[in-house]
C-alpha cells in the first residue's frame, strides 16, 4: 500500500517507539500536523516557542535515555531551533529535529519562510539531511535515529520539503542500517585495557574523573564497581553529576572553575587520572599546562577526537565507557589480588584532610536568603529524589555544588554551550516523560525570562514543573566577574526591571509563591511540592551580593583557587594571573 510522506513520518516515529513530540506548526508542515490531529498514540506537546520545544526534547532525552523528537516549520520555525540543537550537540544528547521546508521546486528561490537550515545546522548537528524524494524518507528517518542514538550521541536534523510530505510511495521499513562511513567502536582495545589496569595497580594516588559519557553509556554501575573495588575516589564533571552517587564516601564532587577545593587539589596531586566519558573542557582543566602535573592519564571515550585534543594521554582507550570499565575491572580481578584499602589508606586520608580543610560552604544569614540555602533546602525536601534542571550562571553552579545527585539522569544542565533559558523547558520535557516525579528547575531571574513563555505549555498539559528562581535582580555570574575582574563596573548586568514573578505565574494560570526571608523558604517549598496539576514559580529573593566560590579564575591553574572569605587578600594575585 502506498503512503504519503507525512504518513511515513508518523509510521516511522511509531516504529522507533516515539510517544511524544515537541513542536510548533506552520505552513509547510501541515501535512504532518493534520495526521497528528486524531492520532491516539503520538502526542504532540505544543510549546510556545521552537527553542522551548528543542530544549524540552533534550530534557526528555536526558531524563529517559531515549531520543527526543521535535517537529517545527520552515524558516523562522527552523532557525529558532538552532540554539537548542547546538545545546544538545555540545552535550551529546540524542534528539531528532524534523523541520519543514518549502517545496523542492522553490528551494533556493528565497521563498516565503525559506531558510537553508541544513546549511545553518551543519556545524551543530551530528548529521543532517534534506530529503528530496519521498522514496528516501523511511530510510533517512531510520538512519537519523540510528546516528543520533549510537556512538557518541547527538542531534540529527531532517529537513522535509512540503511536497515530499505530500508525495506517495510504497512504504518500506529498513530493518537494519549499515553506513560504510559510520561504525562506532564500542569494544576498547584489549591491550590498552591491560595497560590501564596495570597503571591502576601501580598507582598510589589515583582519581577517576567521570563525565557525561558515563551517563549516556549507562555505565554508572560499572563505574561504582570499579571505584569501590579499587577504592579510587571519584570526581564528576558538571555533565557527569549523578553518574556516581553524590553521597558516596568516595565522591569528591565537581572539579574545575567552581569545583570543590578537594576535587581540584586531588587532581593536582594525583599520580593517575582515569578520565571516563569526559573531554577535558577548559572549565574543567583550568590552565592546561599546569593541569594534573604529576599524573599519568588514562582516557576512555567513544569519540576518538576527544582523545589528545586538550591534554596529553598515556593510555587512550576508544570505546564505550560501560564495556571498557567492565573490562578494566575484570583484568584487575584476574591479576594479582591487592589489599586495596591498605594501599589507598594514606591517599584517602590525605583527601579527607583536604575535605575538612575547605569544605563547600557558605555563610548562613538570618535576614537575607542565601541562594545556597535554597538549594540545600530543596535537596532536603526532595530527599534527592527529584529531577533537577538548571539555567546557566550562578544558579547552575550552586545547584551543582549543593545538591547531591545519587542517580544518573536526574541532573539536566547545559554544560557545554551554557544556554540560558535551557532549564525550564528541559524540566518540562522531563516532566512529560515522568509525570509523577518531582521536577525542579533551579533558575535565575535572567535565565528564566529567556523561556518564560513555556509556563503556558505547562499549564496547558498540567505539568507540575517547579521553578525555583534565585532572584538577585542581576545576571549574577556576569556581575561576579565584573566585581572580581572588571573593577566593580557592572556594565549591563543589572536587570533594572524584573517582573513580579508571582503575578506572572498567576497570569499564566500557574501558582506563584515568594520568599523574602530565610524563615519563609521552607514553607514556600512545602507549598510548592503539594501542587500536582500545574507549574509553580517560587520566587526566592536572595542576597544579590553572593558569589560562587571557590573559583579558579579563567586562565589560572586548578590550585590557584580563590575563596570567599579571602577575596580581598587574593585579588591582587588574580590580576597578575590574567
Amino acid at each position, binding site marked *: 500500500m502506498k503512503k504519503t510522506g507525512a504518513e511515513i513520518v508518523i509510521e516511522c516515529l511509531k516504529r522507533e517507539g516515539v510517544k511524544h513530540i515537541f513542536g510548533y506548526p506552520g505552513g509547510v508542515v501541515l501535512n504532518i500536523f493534520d495526521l497528528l490531529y486524531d492520532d491516539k498514540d503520538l502526542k504532540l506537546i505544543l510549546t510556545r516557542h521552537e527553542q522551548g520545544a528543542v530544549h524540552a526534547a533534550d530534557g526528555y532525552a536526558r531524563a529517559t535515555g531515549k531520543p527526543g523528537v521535535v517537529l517545527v516549520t520552515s524558516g523562522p520555525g527552523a532557525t529558532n531551533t538552532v540554539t537548542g540543537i547546538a545545546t544538545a550537540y555540545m552535550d551529546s544528547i540524542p534528539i531528532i529535529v524534523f523541520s519543514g521546508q518549502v517545496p523542492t521546486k522553490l528551494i533556493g528561490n528565497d521563498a516565503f519562510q525559506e531558510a537553508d537550515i541544513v546549511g545553518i545546522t*551543519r*556545524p551543530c548537528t551530528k548529521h543532517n539531511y534534506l530529503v528530496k524524494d519521498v522514496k528516501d524518507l523511511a530510510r533517512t528517518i531510520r538512519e537519523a535515529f540510528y546516528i543520533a542514538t549510537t556512538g557518541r550521541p547527538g542531534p540529527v536534523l531532517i529537513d522535509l520539503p512540503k511536497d515530499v510530505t505530500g508525495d506517495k510511495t510504497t512504504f518500506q521499513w529498513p530493518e537494519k542500517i549499515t553506513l560504510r*562511513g559510520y561504525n562506532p567502536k564500542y569494544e576498547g582495545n584489549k591491550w590498552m585495557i591491560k595497560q590501564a589496569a596495570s597503571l591502576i595497580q601501580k598507582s598510589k594516588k589515583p582519581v577517576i574523573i567521570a563525565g557525561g559519557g558515563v551517563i549516556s553509556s549507562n555505565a554508572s554501575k560499572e563505574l561504582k564497581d570499579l571505584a569501590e573495588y579499587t577504592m579510587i575516589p571519584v570526581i564528576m564533571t558538571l555533565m557527569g553529576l549523578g553518574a556516581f552517587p553524590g553521597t558516596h564516601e568516595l565522591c569528591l564532587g565537581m572539579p574545575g572553575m567552581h569545583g570543590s577545593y578537594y576535587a581540584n587539589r586531588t587532581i593536582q596531586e594525583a599520580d593517575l587520572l582515569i578520565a571516563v566519558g569526559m573531554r577535558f573542557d577548559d572549565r574543567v582543566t583550568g590552565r592546561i599546562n599546569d593541569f594534573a602535573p604529576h599524573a599519568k592519564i588514562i582516557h576512555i571515550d567513544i569519540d576518538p577526537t576527544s582523545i*589528545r585534543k586538550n591534554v596529553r594521554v598515556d593510555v587512550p582507550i576508544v570505546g564505550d565507557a560501560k564495556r571498557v570499565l567492565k573490562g578494566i575491572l575484570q583484568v584487575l580481578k584476574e591479576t594479582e589480588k591487592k589489599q586495596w584499602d591498605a594501599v589507598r589508606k594514606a591517599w584517602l586520608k590525605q583527601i579527607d584532610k583536604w575535605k575538612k580543610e575547605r569544605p563547600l560552604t557558605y555563610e548562613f544569614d538570618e535576614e537575607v536568603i542565601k541562594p545556597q540555602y535554597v538549594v540545600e533546602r530543596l535537596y532536603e525536601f526532595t530527599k534527592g529524589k527529584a529531577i533537577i534542571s538548571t539555567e546557566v550562571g550562578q544558579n547552575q553552579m550552586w545547584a551543582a555544588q549543593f545538591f547531591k545527585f545519587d542517580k544518573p539522569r536526574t541532573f539536566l544542565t547545559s554544560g557545554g554551550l551554557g544556554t540560558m533559558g535551557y532549564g525550564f523547558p528541559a524540566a518540562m520535557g522531563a516532566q512529560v516523560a515522568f509525570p509523577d516525579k518531582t521536577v525542579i528547575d533551579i533558575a535565575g531571574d535572567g535565565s528564566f525570562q529567556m523561556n518564560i513563555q513555556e509556563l503556558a505549555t505547562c499549564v496547558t498539559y498540567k505539568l507540575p514543573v517547579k521553578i525555583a528562581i534565585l532572584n538577585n535582580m542581576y545576571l549574577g555570574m556576569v556581575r561576579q566577574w565584573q566585581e572580581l575582574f572588571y573593577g566593580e563596573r557592572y556594565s549591563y548586568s543589572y536587570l533594572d526591571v524584573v517582573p513580579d514573578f508571582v503575578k506572572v505565574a498567576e497570569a499564566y494560570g500557574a501558582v506563584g509563591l515568594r520568599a523574602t526571608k530565610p524563615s519563609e523558604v521552607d514553607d514556600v517549598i512545602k507549598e510548592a511540592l503539594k501542587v500536582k496539576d500545574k507549574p509553580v514559580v517560587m520566587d526566592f529573593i536572595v542576597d544579590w551580593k553572593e558569589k560562587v566560590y571557590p573559583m579558579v579564575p579563567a586562565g589560572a591553574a586548578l590550585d590557584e583557587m580563590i575563596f570567599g572569605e579571602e577575596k580581598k587578600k587574593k585579588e591582587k594575585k588574580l590580576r597578575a594571573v590574567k
Partner: protein
Amino acid sequence: MRHTISVLVENKFGVLARISSLFSGRGYNIESLSVGETIDPQISIMTIVTTGDDKIIEQITKQLNKLIDVIKVTDLTEIDHVEREMVLIKVAPKQEDKAEVLRLTEIFRGRVVDSSPRTYTVEITGDEKKISAFVELMRPFGIKEFVRTGKIAIAREGVKK
C-alpha cells in the same frame, strides 16, 4: 608541516560543504583541495593539502573520520606516494624569446595547447617542485594568466595504507 590527505567520501550533495565547513569552523588551513569521482560513481575522492603540527593533523584526520559521509581518511604524507598537479600558463613572450619558451616547455615535458600571434598556452603536469621551477622560469617572459589544479595524490602500490 605540510600534509597531503586523501579522503574517500560519499558522492552526495553537501559533502564538500561538510568538509570545508569543518576546516573553517575549527580553524584548520586548506592549501589546496581537489575533488573527483572514483571508479565507483557513488564515491568521490578528495585530496586535501593542509598544514599543522602533529596534534592538529591528528585532530584533522579524526574530525574527518567523524563525519558520517566520510568513508576513509589516509594521510599520504606518511607513506610513499605520487603527487601530481597541473597548471595552464598563458605566456606572452617577445618575438625573440619565443624559441626559448618552447625549448623550456620541451625540457619540462610540457605541451603547448593553444597559441595566438602573441601568446602560448602551456600545459605542465608534475609535482610541486617541478611546477614551481617552471613557473619561475616563465616569469621573466611575462605570464598573462595562470591556473593551477589542486594537488592529487595516490599511494604507490605495495605500500601499507
